[in-house]
């Protein structure tokens, strides 16, 4: 799985990122680099700023200060659409699904196919066909794509969230604890999908709390503490025990 060379080009960089919420400092001058084609793990306790970092990298939040570079060029990610147009996409821990909407509507939420012209009509049939392909690509069986997402199991929901991101030709996929809300079998499905995307050349930043999964998936890791990178390293040579020991050591 270790396909990214240590000297492969830098794809996404964050430098000196500061983000405050009122008096709470979520990120305190954090800097990190993502190389092209690698799977990078973000480790650390809850509330150290990992999710905030991903929300900034996907354009959902704006940093107070700091710069982001894509392919070495400074970019200001205006909003989620802008980041998506640059090939950066995200799967949230809560999967960001709308229970009342159908599977098709969720997969294409805010990326609907419409007719062109002044009055843009939803192309529901086209979206339905595309959704069938996407779900097949994710490899999960769903009874009907027209049923509301609220009726699905945890694994099926995860599949819908994944189908949502695999439709665009993403370069960077961000995953915020994608395995927290799913069972063991579904977790394997998610891991397989991430592996497939990685094999297709997608670079991944993933927040994980199960260090076995980190060993499974990631090539490199950052340990985040107090809104900064406390340590970085290569997963090679680590076991989950030694990784836990490393994370614990940063707390001292």
């Amino acid at each position: 799985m270790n396909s990214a060379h240590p000297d492969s080009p830098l794809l996404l960089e964050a430098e000196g990122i500061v983000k405050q919420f009122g008096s709470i400092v979520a990120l305190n001058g954090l800097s990190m680099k993502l190389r092209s084609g690698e799977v990078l793990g973000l480790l650390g306790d809850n509330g150290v700023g990992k999710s905030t970092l991903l929300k900034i990298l996907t354009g959902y939040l704006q940093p107070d200060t700091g710069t982001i570079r894509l392919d070495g060029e400074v970019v200001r990610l205006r909003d989620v659409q802008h980041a998506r147009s640059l090939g950066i996409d995200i799967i949230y821990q809560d999967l960001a699904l709308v229970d009342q909407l159908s599977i098709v509507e969720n997969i294409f939420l805010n990326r609907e196919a419409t007719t062109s012209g002044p009055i843009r009509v939803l192309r529901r049939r086209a979206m339905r066909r595309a959704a069938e392909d996407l779900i097949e690509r994710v490899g999960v069986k769903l009874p009907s794509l027209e049923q509301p997402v609220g009726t699905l199991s945890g694994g099926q929901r995860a599949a819908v969230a994944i189908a949502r991101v695999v439709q665009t030709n993403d370069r960077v996929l961000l995953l915020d604890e994608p395995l927290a809300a799913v069972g063991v079998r579904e977790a394997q499905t998610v891991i397989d999908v991430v592996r497939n995307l990685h094999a297709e050349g997608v670079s991944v930043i993933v927040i994980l709390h199960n260090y076995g999964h980190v060993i499974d998936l990631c090539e490199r890791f950052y340990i985040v503490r107090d809104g900064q990178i406390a340590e970085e390293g290569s997963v090679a040579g680590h076991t989950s025990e030694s990784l836990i020991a490393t994370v614990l050591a940063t707390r001292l």
Partner: protein
Amino acid sequence: MPEGLRPARLGSRFTVGSRLLQSRHAKRFEEFLFRYREVTLLAAGLCLGAYFQLMTGKLLSNADLLNLSQIMAPIAMLACPTVLLIASGEIDLSIGQTFALAPFLVHFGQQAGIPLLLADVLAIAAVSVVGAINGVVTVYLGVPSFVTTLGTFFGVNGLTLIISSGEPVGAPGTGLYATIFGQNWSLIIWAVAALALFHFILKHMRWGLYCVAIGGNYEASREAGIKVDRIKIGNFIILAAVSGFAGILDAVTVNITDPLAGGSAIMFSAISAVVIGGTALAGGFGTVVGAFIGAGVLALLQDGLTLQGINANAFDLILGIAILSVMIMNVTLSRHLLGRRRA
């Protein structure tokens, strides 16, 4: 998930009925009813109509159908855009007041020498500002829309009373203008146009889809990059504009511009029509067709009870009981169907 969509536990109460509905045809019929919840309401409305026709023998006359349509149309015109707003998780109590204000603005615009059609446009633009205030205060200042629009409810009413000195004036326009904008059957034709327009927006355009998404899961909609603020404020503005237009039409219909037209009566009727029609008051589901049928049922109740010569004092009591009955039927049925789907 809102409580309304979590009814599985209630399923056990309906075991007798469920056993009767075991066949595949019955299941398919239930699916049909679930998909088209409006059908049950339409059936109830038709039964009600049949009842009033049998009791009074007058309902199906041209004169009374016209009367019925003129009661129904303003309610329906306000209800259709209200579906979008309520589906997105907000509410607007001020629509009855913008309804009353707009024809006065037309009247005074005309007196100032502005051509009638331009005065109409200006009046609609002016009441749209009320919608913009509702939206901006709700979205950017975080005041719940119930409270925001309660404020504009009183404020706009006061404005109408001040500029009119509390006195009615004549209705604007005669001849062809009146034929198109309010007289006879034109009011219900405008209401059908509103039905078609807002049904199309809700079911076939991004705007409607986003309304449902925002009402269903606000956070997820934002995370997906939907401009939630724009949609919400837009809904308030559209609704205020339509309510102003409906008020102008209604003034022509009744041939008087009355500061006491509209108000809380039509606002509550419109919101009742939306909710009776099947739109979730908490947001996340909407049906314009249902709201239109709901407006019809409410108008039918009002018209039918009048035809029967029910004492005006008893009217509200009966209307209240009828609204509650329809709602209880509707909620019970959809819970039952949803419960079976999830079981």
